[in-house]
């Protein structure tokens, strides 16, 4: 183990807690909070996946009566998709990569003892947890969960009379989102402050691992985006319960004139997507950062174009706030505005392509080790490309005429924002599990998990593009009413079959996760021979991360296969190699 030199005492250490409650429940330790976020996301992902399984089954056997649940009615189907989307976007894709791994590893990778504000950190987790409980509660109240989709467009979402589930269930949905925003805002402040103020000596911004850059930029996006969604949610709550009309014009529902007038349904769409599009990057940036890290570590090569990677992520972050209107090409927004948004959206494809080129550039001439995290990182690159190339279709308003709201969109965002990000989460789990739990995950099970997930994902989502091109619409509880969709039923059946196999494969992961905690091979402090700071400390890391000392950093994070160096990796804390720093 190359730990290098340490200097000085940590300015920020707080004493290790003793009792169970302070240690594992209301913990101030970023590592425990990271695990809490991770296990919240793990619970959420299995709930969300179960909901998608029910939807897939309903789509091909609409009249099937299931044990416990009974027959899935059209409104139940819509509740399922609303809750699936909300759970997956907020409580999985936002929670695991940032709240989970970001919390655990950002302080360690920059050489800090904890996050800048440990109490705020604890609070942000518990508010997020509460948000999840409130959301799931919507299933159990009168009328059930809302049916307005995860995007919650008013007037449907604003009017109690617009459908079953639009009563208390919809209120709980809005409250849950608002709480989640609060938690995310607190967390974003913490991440930004920590990155700016808590870096160890020598850890300049341009020496940070790309994972830290990704968490940092994600936090900035979160700070700017969640505040807007929070406000939008409060306005929606007022429209629903206080008689205001922010989003609701004069409308007639079920033959009754509703007590609203003058509001704008498009206002919500602007506010929602001002959050919603950066949210896509909130979900995928940490996976991009991680993937860059892993491709470098396991190719035993420096990352290709470190600065280009940083600038690409920054441009994605900035452009990400200028493209929200591409969700609204068909909404009645000005067609001139639509074209402007379209140009910006095509522009954001450029930094995404740069990242892909650099991942390939890193693999080129490497010495690739196919460890489980690397398999998922390569899978991520493949899925990112496949999900990415459908973007330029949807970014063009004229092609949005046939494609908007079809399964083409579903295939696009599931590949890139959903599964690619989840491959990032899997890669992170396999990569950091040894540091978090002191044991290796079982490699054979990991490989089975990878192959089932990788092939299964393509089997589910590739045909789905064609289904969407044939004009099959999303959010249809049955495709039997419209003739052209009925003809495509075999495609739906194939997708459902592929989904069932893919979902079954995820239980291999779940089993491996818990089995390896107890029976996995003992891990050394640096099992992957990687260079970043988390691998310089004990496994699992002590309460203050570096046992009372603070690391000093001498160079960048990706010094692999340096000519003349004794090992093929040079720790960031290794002063001997200062001459190779950039």
């Amino acid at each position, binding site marked *: 183990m190359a730990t290098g030199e340490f200097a000085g005492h940590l300015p920020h250490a707080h004493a290790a807690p003793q009792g169970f409650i302070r240690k594992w429940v209301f913990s101030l330790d970023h590592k425990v909070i990271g695990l809490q976020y991770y296990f919240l996301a793990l619970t959420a992902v299995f709930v969300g996946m179960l909901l998608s399984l029910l939807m897939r089954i309903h789509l091909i056997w609409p009249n099937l009566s299931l044990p416990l649940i009974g027959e899935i009615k*059209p409104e139940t189907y819509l509740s399922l998709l609303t809750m699936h989307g909300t759970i997956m976007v907020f409580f999985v894709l936002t929670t695991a990569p940032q709240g989970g791994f970001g919390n655990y590893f950002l302080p360690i990778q920059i050489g800090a003892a904890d996050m800048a504000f440990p109490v705020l950190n604890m609070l942000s987790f518990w508010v997020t947890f509460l948000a999840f409980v409130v959301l799931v509660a919507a299933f159990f109240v009168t009328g059930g969960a809302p*049916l307005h*989709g995860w995007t919650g*467009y*008013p*007037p*449907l979402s604003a009017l109690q009379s*617009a*459908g079953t589930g639009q009563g208390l269930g919809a209120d709980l949905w809005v409250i849950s989102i608002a709480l989640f925003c609060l938690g995310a805002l607190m967390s974003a402040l913490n991440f930004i402050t920590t990155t700016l103020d808590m870096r160890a000596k020598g850890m300049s911004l341009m020496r940070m691992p790309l994972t830290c850059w990704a968490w940092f930029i994600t936090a900035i996006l979160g700070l700017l985006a969640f505040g807007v969604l929070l406000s939008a949610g409060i306005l929606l709550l007022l429209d629903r319960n206080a008689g205001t009309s922010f989003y609701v014009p004069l*409308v*007639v529902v079920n*033959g009754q*004139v509703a007590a609203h007038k003058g509001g704008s*349904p498009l206002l919500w769409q602007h506010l929602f997507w001002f959050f919603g599009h950066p949210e896509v990057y909130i979900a995928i940036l940490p996976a991009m950062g991680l993937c860059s890290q892993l491709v470098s570590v396991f190719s035993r090569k*420096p990352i*290709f*174009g470190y*600065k280009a990677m940083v600038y690409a992520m920054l441009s994605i972050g900035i452009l990400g706030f200028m493209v929200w209107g591409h969700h609204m090409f068909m*909404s*009645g927004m000005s*067609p001139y505005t639509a074209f402007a948004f379209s140009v910006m959206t*095509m522009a954001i494809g450029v930094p995404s392509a*740069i990242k*892909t080129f650099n991942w*390939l*550039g890193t693999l*080129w*001439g490497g*010495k*690739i*080790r*196919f460890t489980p995290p690397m398999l998922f990182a390569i899978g991520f*690159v*493949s899925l990112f*490309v*496949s999900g990415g190339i*459908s973007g330029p*279709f949807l970014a*063009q308003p*004229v*092609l949005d005429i*046939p494609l908007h*709201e079809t399964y083409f969109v579903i295939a696009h965002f599931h590949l890139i924002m959903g599964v690619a990000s989840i491959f990032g989460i899997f890669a992170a789990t396999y990569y950091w599990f040894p540091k978090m739990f002191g044991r290796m995950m079982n490699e054979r099970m990991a490989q089975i998990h990878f192959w089932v997930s*990788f*092939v299964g994902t*393509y089997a589910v989502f*590739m045909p789905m593009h*064609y*289904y969407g091109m044939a*004009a099959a*619409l999303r*959010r*249809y*509880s049955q*495709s039997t*009413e*419209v003739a052209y*969709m009925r003809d495509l039923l075999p495609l739906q059946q194939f997708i459902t079959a592929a989904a069932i196999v893919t979902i079954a494969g995820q239980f291999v992961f779940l089993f491996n996760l818990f089995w390896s905690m107890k029976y996995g091979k003992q891990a050394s402090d640096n099992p992957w021979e990687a260079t970043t700071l988390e691998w310089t400390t004990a496994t699992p890391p002590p309460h203050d991360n570096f046992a009372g000392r603070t690391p000093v950093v001498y160079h960048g994070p990706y010094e692999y*296969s340096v*000519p003349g160096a004794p090992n093929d990796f040079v720790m960031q804390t290794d002063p001997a190699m200062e001459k190779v720093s950039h």
Partner: protein
Amino acid sequence: MGLVLLVVIWLITFVSAFLFFVKPNWWLPHGASTAAAGIDHHFTLSFILMGIVFVAAQVVLGLFAWKYREQASSKAHYTHGNNKLEFAWTVLTAVLFIGLNWASKPLWASERFDAAHAGALQVEVTGMQFQWYFRYAGPDGKFGATKLELVDPSAGGESAVGLDTTDPASKDDVVTGTMYVPVNREVEVILKAHDVIHSFFVPGMRFKQDAVPGLAIHMHFTPIETGDYEIACAELCGMGHYKMHGMLKVVSQEEFDKWLAAREAEKQ
């Protein structure tokens, strides 16, 4: 493992691309409006260009995974990148993406920037949970007033759109549940919604536009082939969303005139 990755990634890539050549019925539905040819052509162009990017990237990924797998003799190449390459692929992708978009601008302009021509047939399309209604102005060429207070969806027809029968202009208005239009004549759609957002989607016409409560959105399309074309709602509007569909019947001008006259006669 590198070889397996190569084989699997290449197989996925070629199967995905192969579907493009063998499954014509999984393509965009048959287009029967003036807009269809341009949109379909641009879609195909995008498909081919993006298809090349897709195949190239996946093939290289698979190839590298296999070629640069760790072997006893292999040695990693120490490099931090290449600015010329970064510059080259930045410019290349920017030209490809922005250029592709720019090529689509005239199509979008003719669909959305330009208003319908004078002499287009005006049809008011109203969406409500979970039904489409179509209103024709009749011989006077004027739509009568509607009032939301008068809307009674259960009564259907004129009451469903809240037609104010005291307005003289409303006397000859025709409200139907099936949309009839003559072939080769521009149709100006005036889109409205009474309750929540709906979206008027006619795949065969390459037409889609949200119907938003509080707005009257003017759009246009020109059918060029007679026949029946399905109308579907493309914006989640509640539990009956999946069955909110209708039929567009494109007929000859004579048939259309006959049909409209018959509706007028029914009204009297």
